[in-house]
């Protein structure tokens, strides 16, 4: 089965970033339909019927999230999470680059559903050109009456503010995002209270991912029941999978949920490069556990991948060929978490530091077997004990790789260099 293009259908179309072209292909009809013929409650019900689950990582049902807002507490706010910084993920950038008005329309539909007078799009600082594009598109939409007062002659008003971050992965975590948006250091808050009850400026707030919101125009136009018929039973719709690493054709591919991972790898990514074989892959992004060739027949379905010990997370797929050193990969991911730890809690702040130190010495072949066992100790003292999931997930890949490739980790001890790289360099010469 090939790609199933719902959100990506118009990618690559000439001028799709302009309002004129977006309108010509039916753009903003979903918003018009919602405002003209649906009450906010009906809209929430429709999104519940669709079964859509959040695309930001945790997979929480979107309609249910919206219905947690306390009745009659106003104002409420919508935050669009465009902080995309999970290693291996680049789908939200594609959704912005290739169809920015689709996201803006989805944002307005969500804002109407929860009756938010302002929606903030929090976009990571590195997406500088994407921020400028969104700002231009919001102004275009405002001039045409889609943003601002009494949208399309209804009594619903909503402003959109595009807010640029400044380099901090943790600001993708919803409460850290809110802190950052309020003008503070982006550090996570204790939950509960959840943002739905007490979020931005202490008001009820919904945080949704770019891809989640980009689905809404389609759900409104074609109906929740139709959407629920696409994909798998408990993972409805499609998802954009960000495929990278040792494959012939890296890129984002939109697949119906439930499709076997093997089809994504073989048909879309065109297999592993250089005629080599697959050693391991990481679904979900840098936070998730390693999977092996034997897992290729799993469906792209949130619960199935979770049962296999990993997760679809934010939709990344990083494929690694037979020459890959799993210690090196683990080291880079651990370095990332060490760099991005916000410093709020000790297990994460200190743990990632020790992890990184050990992994560098292991990759250099300078660790003793006794020291290697402290790696497990450190991870045990982090996982489940950190203030937010950043610290927990800083242990997931490395621990799963240690389990699956124990011999390779042990072989590094005292090897005076990376034995895997040495082996493949020797093979390349031979």
């Amino acid at each position, binding site marked *: 089965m090939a790609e199933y293009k719902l959100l990506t259908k118009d990618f690559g179309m000439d001028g799709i970033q302009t309002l004129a072209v977006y309108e010509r292909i039916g753009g903003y009809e979903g918003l018009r339909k919602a405002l003209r013929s649906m009450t906010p409650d009906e809209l929430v019900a429709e999104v519940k019927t669709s079964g859509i689950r959040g695309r930001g990582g945790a997979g929480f049902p979107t309609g249910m999230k919206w219905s947690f807002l306390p009745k009659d507490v106003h104002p409420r706010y919508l935050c669009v999470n465009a902080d995309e910084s999970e290693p291996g993920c680049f789908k939200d950038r594609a959704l912005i680059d290739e169809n920015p008005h689709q996201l803006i329309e989805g944002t307005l539909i969500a804002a109407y559903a929860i009756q938010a007078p302002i929606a903030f799009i929090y976009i990571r600082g590195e997406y500088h050109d994407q921020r400028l594009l969104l700002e231009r598109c919001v102004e275009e939409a405002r001039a045409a009456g889609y943003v601002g007062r009494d949208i399309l002659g209804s009594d619903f008003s909503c402003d959109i503010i595009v807010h640029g*971050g400044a380099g901090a992965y943790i600001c993708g975590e919803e409460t850290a995002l809110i802190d950052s948006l309020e003008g503070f250091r982006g550090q996570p808050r204790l939950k509960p209270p959840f943002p739905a009850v007490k979020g931005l400026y202490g008001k009820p707030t919904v945080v949704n991912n770019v891809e989640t919101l980009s689905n809404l125009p389609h759900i409104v136009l074609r109906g929740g029941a139709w959407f629920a018929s696409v994909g798998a039973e408990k993972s409805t719709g499609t998802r954009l999978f960000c495929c990278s690493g040792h494959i012939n054709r*890296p890129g984002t591919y939109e697949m119906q949920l439930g499709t076997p991972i093997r089809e994504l790898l073989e048909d879309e990514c065109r297999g592993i490069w250089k005629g080599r074989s697959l050693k391991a892959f990481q679904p979900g992004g840098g936070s998730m556990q390693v999977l092996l060739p034997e897992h290729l027949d799993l469906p792209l379905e949130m619960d199935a991948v979770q049962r296999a010990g990993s997760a679809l997370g934010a939709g990344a797929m990083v494929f690694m060929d037979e020459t890959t050193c799993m210690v090196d990969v683990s080291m880079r991911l651990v370095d990332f978490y060490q760099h991005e730890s*916000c410093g709020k809690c000790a297990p994460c702040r200190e743990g990632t530091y020790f992890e990184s130190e050990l992994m560098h010495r292991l990759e250099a072949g300078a660790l003793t077997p006794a020291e290697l066992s402290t790696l497990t100790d450190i991870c045990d003292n982090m996982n489940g004990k950190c203030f937010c999931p950043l610290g927990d997930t800083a242990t997931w890949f490395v621990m799963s790789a240690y389990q699956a490739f124990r011999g390779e980790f042990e072989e590094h001890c005292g090897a005076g260099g990376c034995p895997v790289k040495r082996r493949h360099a020797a093979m390349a010469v031979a």
Partner: protein
Amino acid sequence: MSVLTPKTRAEIERQRDRYPHARSAVLPSLWAVQHQLGYLSPEGMKEVAELLRLTPSEVEAVASFYSMYFDRPGGRHHVLVCVNVSCALRGAEEIVSHLESRLGCPSGGTTADGAFTWEHTVECLGACGGAPAMQVDHHFQENLTPERVDAILDGVRGAPAAEGPAGRPHRSSGSAAQRAS
């Protein structure tokens, strides 16, 4: 005396009035300062504090948390190379060594002629599909080879200093946790 131009101050005031609470304008205001000065000087941050009715230490505490704000001047152009997994799998280290020898300074350094400050980063830039990737003055450059890197650097070397919030960078930033201490 003000170190910020009337244009920068007006931009900060515009940002301040956009939000329900003025404090939300801290990040955009710091971008405006960096855009003008190339980095965040103590004087620049003090003016942001005045305009947003915060204390200078409140503004500095925010600024020091975020890795894209520069705390000292750097080269006219900024090169940021990703060394996270997807880029490493497709040759990021080769790009890093190439930059090191071509620019003649280690990661975090500035070239002798002041044209470039470059650094490698473990932060995935969101360009893994075009790995190995880098950003030059905040614009993506993907599918890099040493030859392509040379062509890109030659292209920007003569160009004026970075437009937009890029500004001129400082030396390599530490981890957020280090910045917290």
